[in-house]
């Protein structure tokens, strides 16, 4: 009897030990930009991720969470190097972050080769939604084309007949301009792709746009470049002449520096500060209390990324070796997203609403972004059919 008990105990211990030994912590690698003029974006993503961990009691499925933040310096080669380091020497369980599409594309191969679970919190190059989709790669943002597609729809509603497109010459810039063109029913009378990220003087492009005499100008410049573009658009005297439509150019991070120039310039986004769901109210209120400033959509997506990972770790009760079970759980998007409920497409890109947002003055006289209308309901990216994944 005693022997049987001992044997049973030993077998039990053997069966338990690998899981217990492997999963002392959930190790997460976070790649974003923490230096240079766009470091404000990386900081907002980090702040929101940390806030999500606070809300989760800094534990996922009973395991403590360890996050390693790495700075890509907005450079694809550096991003790739940092990603490889996180996978090979830190042996992270999850890899999260990525603002820039070109940095993400450069970093993707080591992630897919090592089958590391990945949650992209911003970048959305069409390749990742299409032929490069992977069972272990999820997005809590969008495919690049989706937001400008919504802007294109909005321009149709406003009766815009001709448009001039301006954006930066890199993966996301090209996606964005093609995104607008894909839904816009009028004529694209010209387009410019500018050197990225070092060209910040847009005089040439603004002159060309003016000469083309379009009904509207569409522009995509994320981060500090968006502030500069808007300044120069006003200085060139275009503000009264040709209306501006934007994607990712006016957000909570750039607004304090764009000030009144941003008033009345429409844009689209899947998340705005004032979305009326409980998860979002808690996120925004606690963020403002902790960091004394408002969060941006970059932060909202990072906050969601932490909660998406948590849902997966909970589902396998902390056994992080069960990657397939975690993937199946993540496909359900079974957590309280701050944008409200959404579904995943076959390529792990959200199927979600896009809202019209505009900068307005609130009752305290501060500039804030406000949801004006829903432009597209349940938008799915146009590359999902190129992704071979089915489930």
């Amino acid at each position: 009897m005693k022997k049987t008990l001992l044997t049973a105990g030993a077998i039990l211990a053997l069966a338990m030990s690998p899981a217990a030994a492997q999963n002392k912590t959930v190790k997460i690698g976070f790649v974003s930009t923490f230096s240079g003029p766009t470091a404000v974006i990386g900081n907002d993503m980090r702040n929101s991720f940390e806030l999500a961990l606070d809300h989760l009691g800094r534990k996922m499925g009973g395991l403590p969470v360890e996050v390693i933040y790495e700075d890509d310096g907005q450079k694809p080669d550096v991003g790739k190097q940092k990603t490889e380091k996180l996978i090979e020497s830190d042996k992270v369980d999850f890899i999260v972050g990525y603002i820039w599409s070109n940095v993400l594309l450069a970093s993707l191969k080591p992630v897919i080769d090592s089958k590391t679970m990945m949650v992209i919190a911003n970048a959305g190059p069409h390749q990742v939604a299409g032929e490069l989709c992977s069972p272990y790669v999820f997005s809590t943002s969008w495919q690049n084309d989706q937001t400008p597609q919504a802007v294109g729809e909005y321009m149709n509603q406003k009766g815009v007949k001709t448009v001039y497109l301006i954006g930066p010459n890199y993966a996301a810039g090209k996606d964005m301009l093609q995104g607008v063109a894909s839904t816009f029913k009028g004529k694209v009378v010209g387009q410019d792709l500018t050197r990225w990220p070092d060209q910040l003087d847009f005089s040439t492009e603004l002159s060309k746009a003016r000469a083309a005499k379009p009904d509207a100008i569409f522009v995509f410049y994320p981060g500090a470049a968006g502030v500069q573009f808007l300044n120069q658009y006003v200085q060139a005297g275009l503000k009264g002449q040709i209306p501006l439509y934007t994607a990712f150019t006016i957000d909570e991070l750039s607004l304090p520096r764009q000030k009144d120039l941003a008033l009345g310039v429409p844009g689209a986004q899947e998340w705005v500060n004032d979305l009326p769901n409980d998860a979002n109210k808690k996120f925004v209120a606690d963020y403002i209390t902790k960091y004394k400033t408002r969060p941006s959509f970059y932060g909202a997506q990072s906050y969601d990324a932490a909660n998406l990972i948590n849902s997966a770790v909970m589902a396998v009760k902390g056994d992080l070796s069960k990657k397939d079970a975690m993937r199946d759980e993540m496909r359900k998007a079974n957590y309280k997203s701050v944008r409200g409920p959404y579904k995943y497409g076959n390529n792990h890109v959200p199927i979600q609403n896009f809202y019209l947002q505009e900068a307005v003055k609130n009752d305290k006289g501060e500039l804030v972004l406000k949801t004006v209308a829903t432009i597209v309901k349940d938008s799915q990216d146009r590359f999902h059919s190129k992704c071979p994944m089915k489930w």
Partner: protein
Amino acid sequence: MLLFVEQTLNGLQFGLLLFLLAAGLTLVFGIMDLVNLAHGSFYMLGAYFAATFTALTGHFIGGVVLALIATLMVGMAVEVIAIRRLYGRDHLDHVLGTFGLLLFFNELVRLIWGPAGMNLTLPSWLNTSIELMPGVYYSMYRLSIIVVALVVALVLYLVVMRTRIGMLIRAGASNREMIGALGINIKLLFTFVFGAGAALAGLAGLMQAAILTAQIGMGENILILAFVVIIIGGIGSIRGAFIASILVGLIDTVGRAFLSDVLKLFLSNAAASTAGPALSSMLIYLVMAVILVMRPEGLFPAASK
């Protein structure tokens, strides 16, 4: 046609801005024989000073004047504290030493002003556009940059060519031992020239701040172009720097404005709009290579070399 006028003005504005930066660089290089990679830091400091002082005083012109004085002071202080020790050494030491200064200033600005950058707010009379001729609108601010830079170029030319100080500067460029032997306080002259170069860079930076916002590291990209300008123009030559700056400004703008359209004549639309910007950013370096093959000393080599 209207577009062409506007683009020429854009090119001229960018070229003149480059000239302000290149003039200081070429003065320091020509006279002190010093390769100064920290020149872009004064450009950055000018921008930050202007943004800070205009915000503090609430007065645009006053803030700009204060910023210029501050950049001049910083420039002279840097010369006395750090640069002075580098004169006797070779160019590699200059590069290392001034590169260290560049990193130092970037970190200093990050400590003082934070990583986010600063806006220089323009008064409303500058923040508009005017109709130059029927149908041609141009930014009032960019026009004023052209005017200011032209005036500065003229003053610089007169100072260097027509005044006693200018004569000493030119003499120092040809033979610095001789001018020292003539009883001129060469140390003081060098401090002054270095400070003036810094102030010119600061002027370029503060004018650019209203267009691009003040940012850490903003001097590095444009410094490369300023080096291209002094190499094309001939090292140490103000006249060369002036002509080369305008050449580079025009080539850059014209390339950006029309190269994609030219490429569309024999490439597909998608290929042309991707290749256009990439090619136009190489155009300047191609021109530099061609000029160097034909005139290795640059277009207007300084007489002393």
